[in-house]
Every structure is written in structure tokens, then in C-alpha cells.
């Protein structure tokens, strides 16, 4: 992580210098020629964005207001385009780790068959969903899981043989539970939703998903 950040910082310095040179050479010629015609100084102020958002969502139904408001982590990740400097990244990991509530009985493995259903369902939380729709984890949107399911996305890594590759180790299963509960406890600004921290999935649902990853009979490990 820190290596990556350092390399990026160096690259940014070069890119910044190059951009400056271009600006000095072609200053004001045509913004359209540059890949990104605007520099950081043009970033709209927080007050401007607040006004824009107010005008963009004038009728928000009761109970949905919070969806427009960013928490500290969302704010930082947006600001740094999901590549925060090391100090910010560490702060996020620390803060998000503190949100994790492990199952009281210590058992993180539920029913893998239920887990498979949760992994396949992209329902819940959308304004088009009927009330009381059960939320799904929609894991297949981004991950390959069972080898027999061909309709999988590639935004996240393939998770085939997830449990098998970890020799069905219980500590690895607990780590997986924590990751599904709050992905940003592992990777700051991860694209993966914080399913448990947002209470989008229940404790039982997360256990079921972890079982889908770790059960020896699960198609993930076949």
C-alpha cells in the first residue's frame, strides 16, 4: 500500500510538472486539448456542492435524508478519488475496524445455501424496491464465486476456491467475516460496500455468505 502510494506520489509530481509545462506553453490555447481541462483550484467548494445537492434532490422521502450525507470515510475517499495519502488511509482503517461487531458466540459460519442466494441477489435499498424487500449482497455483480455461475462481474477479484485455498482455516473465516462486515477495515477506500457497518446485511446474512465462501460443500470450493 505504502509502496504504491509512494510511487503514485512520484508519478503525480512528474505529471504535475508536465502539466505545468504544457500550461505554460499552451496557456489558454484550448482547454479541450488537455486530458483534464481543469486543475485542482477549480474544485468546487463544499458550500457550492451542498447547494448543487440540494437542488438535485428536492424531494427526498422520509428516512432517506442520510443517504445524501457523507460520513467521514466517504468524504475522504471522494476527496482523494479513492487513493488517500497514507495517514488518511490509516485513519480510515482504524476507524472502520472499530465498527466491526463479531458474532457473540464466535461462530462465523452460517448456511452456505442461504449464502449463495444472498450472493446472487442484487435487491434491496433501491427506490424501485417494494418495501420490506430483503437486501441481497450481490456478490456476483463483482466477483466470480461458484464455477458453475457464468454471469459474474470482474470489479473484484475471483473468489473461487476461497475456503479451500485457505485450508478451511477458522481464523481466515473470521477475517472474511470482518471483511464483509467492513471492507475498509482492510483496504481504505475499497470499492466494496461496508455491508455490516451500514446494517445492509444482518449478522446472520454475513455468516451465510462466509459459509458460502468456506463450506467444504459450497460450490465455491468444488
Amino acid at each position, binding site marked *: 500500500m505504502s509502496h504504491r502510494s509512494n510511487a503514485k506520489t512520484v508519478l503525480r509530481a512528474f505529471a504535475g510538472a508536465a502539466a505545468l509545462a504544457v500550461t505554460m506553453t499552451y496557456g489558454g490555447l484550448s*482547454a*479541450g486539448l488537455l*486530458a483534464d*481541462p*481543469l486543475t485542482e483550484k*477549480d*474544485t*468546487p467548494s463544499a458550500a*457550492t*456542492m451542498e447547494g*448543487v*445537492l440540494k*437542488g*438535485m*434532490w*428536492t*424531494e*427526498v*422521502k422520509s428516512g*432517506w435524508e442520510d*443517504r*445524501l*450525507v*457523507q460520513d467521514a*470515510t*466517504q468524504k475522504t*475517499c*471522494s476527496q482523494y*478519488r*479513492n487513493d488517500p495519502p497514507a495517514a488518511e488511509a490509516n485513519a480510515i482503517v482504524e476507524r472502520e475496524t472499530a465498527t466491526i461487531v463479531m458474532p457473540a458466540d464466535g461462530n462465523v459460519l452460517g448456511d452456505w445455501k442461504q449464502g449463495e442466494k444472498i450472493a446472487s441477489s442484487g435487491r434491496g*435499498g*433501491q*427506490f*424501485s424496491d417494494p418495501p420490506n424487500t430483503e437486501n441481497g449482497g450481490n456478490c*456476483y*455483480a*463483482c466477483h466470480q464465486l461458484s464455477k458453475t455461475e*457464468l*454471469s*459474474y*462481474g*470482474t*470489479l473484484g477479484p475471483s473468489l473461487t476456491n476461497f475456503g479451500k485455498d485457505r485450508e478451511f482455516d477458522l481464523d481466515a473465516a473470521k477475517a472474511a467475516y470482518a471483511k464483509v462486515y467492513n471492507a475498509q477495515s482492510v483496504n481504505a477506500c475499497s*470499492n466494496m*460496500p*461496508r455491508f455490516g457497518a*451500514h446494517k*445492509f446485511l444482518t449478522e446472520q446474512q454475513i455468516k451465510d455468505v462466509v459459509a458460502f465462501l468456506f463450506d467444504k460443500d459450497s460450490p465455491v470450493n468444488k
Partner: protein
Amino acid sequence: MKRRRPYLFFLVTLLSSVITIVTLRAQGTDNTDKELERYREMLDDPMANPGYFNVDRGEQLWATARGKKSVSLETCDLGKGPGVLEGAYAELPRYFADANKVMDLEQRLLWCMQTVQDLDIKDVLARKFGSEGHTSDMEDLVTFIANKSNGMKFHLSLSNAQEQQAYAIGKELFYRRSSLLDFSCSTCHSEDGKRIRLQELPNLSKPGVDAQKTIASWPTYRNSQSQTRTMQNRLYDCYRQMRMPPPDYASDGMTALITYLTKQAEGGEINVPSIKR
């Protein structure tokens, strides 16, 4: 483009598509990409495109006298002078001095309905997205007007402060993570060659081919919805999937986001209405 009779072709296309998908599911991953490509080629066949019904209706609507002033929209200035349609869509969103703001095509059309025609737009807004038995004036007009830029390339000059501000706000919105799943536009659209399920995701975080092909193919006839949809509708649907409340149609924020996306598509050749899944 003259009226065509696309239904027979359309049915054939649909049937072929279904067969393709069934075949695709049966064949396994090796052929997945190839079969998806074939499916898309079939969707691209303009002879099977019901979106041209919207073009025809939009053409009539553009010339129909409406509103308290009982005039048509033919004096509406979409940026290239009153009534000039050719190439107008290729340069939108843009700043309009008379309204003193940056507007996309949909926002501008509503403005023209109100100022040129003095039309009560309540009914137009109620039908902003067409549904079974209810055509949408906006989808018809936008499809007709955008079609008049076919073969032309997107070019936003961003030559004044308001346009630059709209672009900057749009970019900020693109990266703004929020709601129950922490999603932003960039969650799905900032890397090359990614898919959600089997759907390919264009990388819209940078200028180039992905953005050009994507943005320049809207409005599009969406097979899955049996309606021709505009960019405003596509973004509304994105926000739905992002678990956000429905954004206000033709609001300044939506125009800003469309400004950013269209600038990423700079140089993209417009060919609409297209057909998509």
C-alpha cells in the same frame, strides 16, 4: 430518416437475442465474449430499431403549436441559433446567456416550452419517462434532436466560467461516494475492461473510446424497458442502483454530471438512437 416498419425485424432480433443468450449460457466461458459481441451487433441493426418512432413523433412535436402562446418550438435556440437543430446536440450542454446557466438538451427544451410556448410543463414532467401506453414528449423530442447530430462529433468548448464550473461540479459528483453501499459513479466506471455480471462497464473517468462510444450512443432504445431512454434517464437509473433517492430531472446537478461525461466523450461520433439491452 424516414419512417420504417421495424416491428417484424425487431421481433426477429429479439428472438435471435433470446436464442443467443440461451446458447451463451449453455456454452461456457470460452465463447462468452464472442457471443456477447454477436448479441450486441444484432442490437445495433438500425432496421430493427423502434427508437425511430420517437424520432418521427419528436419531429411532429417540434413543429406543433402548444402552450398559451400557441406556437411551435421552431424558434427555440438550442445553442446554434433559433430553430437550428443540425449539430446542436453535439455541443450540449452549453451556457445560455438568456437563461444565464449551463443547460443540457432536456433542461433547455423545458426552458423553451416555458418561455417560447408558455406551456405548463406539469404534464410533460409527469411523462418525462415513457411507459406502456404513455409516450414521453421529452424522449421523443430529445431523440429527434439528437438524431440531427448523427455523424457529428461531440465538442464542448468549456469556454466560459459557468461551463468550466459545471464540468468541475460534474466531476465532483462522479467521484462522490454516499448512501448505504458507499457507491459513486467511479465505483463502476473508473477502470478499463471491467464487467458487472456480464455487462461491460465503460471507463468514464478518462477521455477516450469508452466514453465516446457510450455517451454518443444515447438516446437509446432499451430492449429491457421497451422504451427509448435519454441520458437523464440513464443517470436516474444509476442513482437508483447506487441506492440514492431519485435525482431531480433536468436539475443543475444532473446537467453538471452530463457536462463532465460529455466532455469525457469529446470527439465521439454521435449515432442515435442506438439499441441496447
